[in-house]
């Protein structure tokens, strides 16, 4: 039982990812679907950051650390990169939606289905 309580941050991540998937699958508004994607992004970033955590350890900066006890630095670097990538992809997708709205005047995914079959 203790294990489940300890793993709570990871379970939060799983919840966030499932919530995002739910949003993507059940919402028809394209903007809301992109918001669902952003929820998953944040969940994944939370996952990467929480991987770094070691109890009682300091941030990986030598000037403020009391000793050599520091949390894992690699996943912080990975998270920084993935945040920037998330920003870039979201921006591009929103610009696609803007263009679709200009053309057709709709952000409904059920109405944007000209390519099919």
């Amino acid at each position: 039982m203790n294990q489940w309580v300890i793993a709570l941050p990871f379970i939060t991540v799983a919840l966030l990812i499932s919530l995002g998937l739910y949003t993507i699958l059940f919402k028809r508004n394209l903007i809301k679907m992109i918001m669902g994607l952003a929820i998953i992004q944040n969940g994944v970033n939370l996952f990467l950051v929480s991987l770094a955590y070691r109890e009682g350890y300091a941030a990986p900066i030598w000037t403020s650390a009391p000793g050599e006890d520091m949390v894992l630095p690699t996943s912080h670097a990975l998270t920084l990169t993935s945040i920037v990538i998330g920003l870039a992809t979201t921006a591009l997708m929103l610009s696609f939606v803007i263009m679709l709205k200009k053309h057709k005047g709709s952000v409904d995914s059920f109405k944007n289905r000209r390519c099919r079959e």
Partner: protein
Amino acid sequence: MIDILLKDMWSPIVFIIVSLLTALVAYMFYRIGDEGYKRTRHKGEPFISGNMPPKDPRMIHVGGDNVFWGFTHALRKYLDPLVKAHTGIINDYVYWMVITMALVLIYVYLLI
């Protein structure tokens, strides 16, 4: 088991030479034929079920979906649901991906 490996026997250059030789033989047979044969008036004109061919030559062409119409029509009970499943809605694209992911996860969990 196939003892002879086809890939060891396969050589495109030999194939091309053999095809050329075959073509040569065919041409020689062709040359034996009667040279005095005369084309009749309707020879070479399209024959459409006994109807007169249309005046406009563009109408003779059968194109697009009509080419394998019979084949696709015979398979319509299999093809139509398949075509219908390609809805073109993003939600469905994600839906199929999520389902595949769930199935693969179960498959790998059970079988490895």
